[in-house]
């Protein structure tokens, strides 16, 4: 049973309690300077963006079929069946392919450290696996960030869109973006306003590489036979050449 977060921007009051709770849970410093930063970074995994009196959270979408997990050569990123996409620092070699590939630009790097790690929201994996809700959902005073079963949250989001169509852009962001995500967003402003791309493909991105990678074993077999065959066919000429090469070597000896 996959868990999810539903964030309804129309209920958000920009109290930034979620930012603070997130920092605490991840043992990161939090103060006014950090609070004022409007970008996600290695020391700020979630951020409440403000455009006038409208707000929008950004956090790792914890994709159903995560691009980051698919590209990581050492399997440091992994999707749990409960929903969170987790990161195992001890595996990571810092190639940063996950950062380049993530369609939402989520993973951040500790650029200032000599031995850096990738940083991203992991949907409070330890808490969720222990049956609790995420830290951000727990502190949210208005219910703008809500934690629950993904199916139920989708039904609820649809209900809200149905009941108050004038309040919302008619779209549940994350329902089918790159194959669906564990974070679902509702907003009254177009999602692009806050840097959420709406032109993303609807199928999981890992498919794009899998289509090619899955052909490799066949190609190796075919290529081996083909090359070996060509060599065998032209081999006679090689024997002639080898004889000639021997003469060369003999001449060298002299």
């Amino acid at each position, binding site marked *: 049973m996959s868990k999810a977060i539903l964030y309804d921007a129309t209920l958000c009051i920009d109290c930034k309690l979620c930012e603070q709770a997130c920092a605490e849970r991840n043992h990161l410093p939090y103060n006014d300077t950090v609070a004022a930063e409007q970008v996600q970074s290695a020391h700020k995994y979630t951020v409440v963006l403000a455009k006038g009196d409208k707000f929008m959270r950004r956090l790792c979408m914890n994709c159903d079929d995560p691009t980051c997990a698919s590209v990581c050569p050492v399997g440091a990123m992994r999707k749990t069946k409960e929903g969170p996409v987790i990161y195992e620092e001890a595996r990571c070699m810092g190639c940063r392919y996950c950062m380049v590939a993530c369609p939402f630009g989520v993973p951040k790097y500790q650029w200032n450290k000599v031995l850096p790690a990738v940083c991203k929201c992991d949907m409070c994996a330890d808490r969720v696996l222990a049956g609790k809700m995420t830290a951000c959902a727990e502190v949210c005073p208005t219910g703008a960030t809500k934690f629950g079963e993904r199916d139920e949250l989708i039904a609820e989001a649809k209900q809200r869109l149905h009941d108050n169509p004038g309040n919302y852009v008619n779209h549940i962001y994350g329902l089918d973006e790159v194959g669906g995500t564990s974070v679902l967003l509702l907003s009254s402003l177009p999602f692009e306003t806050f840097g959420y791309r709406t032109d993303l493909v609807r199928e999981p991105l890992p498919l794009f590489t899998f289509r090619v990678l899955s052909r490799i074993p066949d190609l190796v077999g075919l290529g081996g036979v083909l090359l070996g065959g060509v060599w065998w066919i032209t081999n006679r000429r090689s024997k002639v050449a080898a004889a000639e090469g021997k003469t*060369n070597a003999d001449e060298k000896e002299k």
Partner: protein
Amino acid sequence: MKQRLMRFTLWKVVFFAIMAAGLYATVLRFTRGLGASTNLSDRFPWGIWIGFDVLCGVMLAAGGFTLMAAVHIFHIERFKPIIRPTVLTAFLGYLLVCVALMYDLGRYYRIWHPLVMRNPHSVMFEVAWCVMLYTTVLALEFAPIVFERLRLEKPLRILRAVSIPLVILGVILSTLHQSSLGSLYLIMPNKLYPLWYSPLLPVFFFISAIGIGLAMTIFESYMSSKYFHRQLELPLLSELGRILAVVLSVYAVLRFEDLYHRGALKLVLQPRYETYLFLLEVVVGLLLPIAMLFRRRIRESTGGLYLAAVLTVLGFITNRLNVSITGMEGAAGLHYIPKWTEMAVTAMIIAGGFALFGLATKYLPIFPEKGEPAEAAAVVVRRRAVEQQPVAGD
């Protein structure tokens, strides 16, 4: 004589200056971290160490597998005299790619992790394995030259016995990772600019690797004639130029068909930064060399052929940089300019490569006909080439 000596010392000064700058940058990189020593950022995590050192480095070493396949599998024996310098270049190229990776990886000491931690869905995982295995293959292909020098007969015989399977393995591994470097970007259809993003990226990278292999062979032969007074006969190189023209044409047609079918061709009319770099890549680095190589007069002149080869190489370098940097800047919303440290490290790696090449040619039988005892062999090689001229020519 005196002039030559001065030129020699000048180059030495340049070389040591590059090395000094590179070493200083190295210290910065490993004591202060990537943030202090590069212009990389969360929005732009891959810079020239990946875009140039790794992508172009691997590409430029493609001569190794192209020539190995031509000589040992297709038995086009007349290219044999240049096989050693080419294998040496490829081997050095891959070693240097690994060195560059050590700079780029945040946790370089875990570079071996893909050996034991597997994610077969990752293109990077596949590239890591292929590069590792292929570097080993290249080392084994290069080893006979060293053994020959040291007169170690037994290992030499063992290596000779497995040489054909080794060559086949090498060609397959190269095919895989040359194309996979293109596949790296397949997963970013929404990020890479449509002039470069294509489901055919792996195919493009592979075909261009073959083209580069040929162009680099021409280029290297010219260079070695200049500095080591040894080169292939022109008809032979012209023949390579002829093959190169065909390979480039196939590549160009595929590129344009692909752009057309994806509806991206109209982007060429937009006055954008990306457009200019695309035109530079395609017009100067692709169409121009094709036009040159199809003209017999140019193809059969040393200067013309050399120029066409250099344009091809520069064109594909531009292509790799466009894919890895230009094409990614739009989505990142910034312009990336490498920091001096990034360039210093790159320059040091390149200079190191040249130095190693020079050393190897000095102490190893890379150009077998150099020096006194090999004089006779040289005559044979030349005579054979002359005999084959009717075939090589029209």
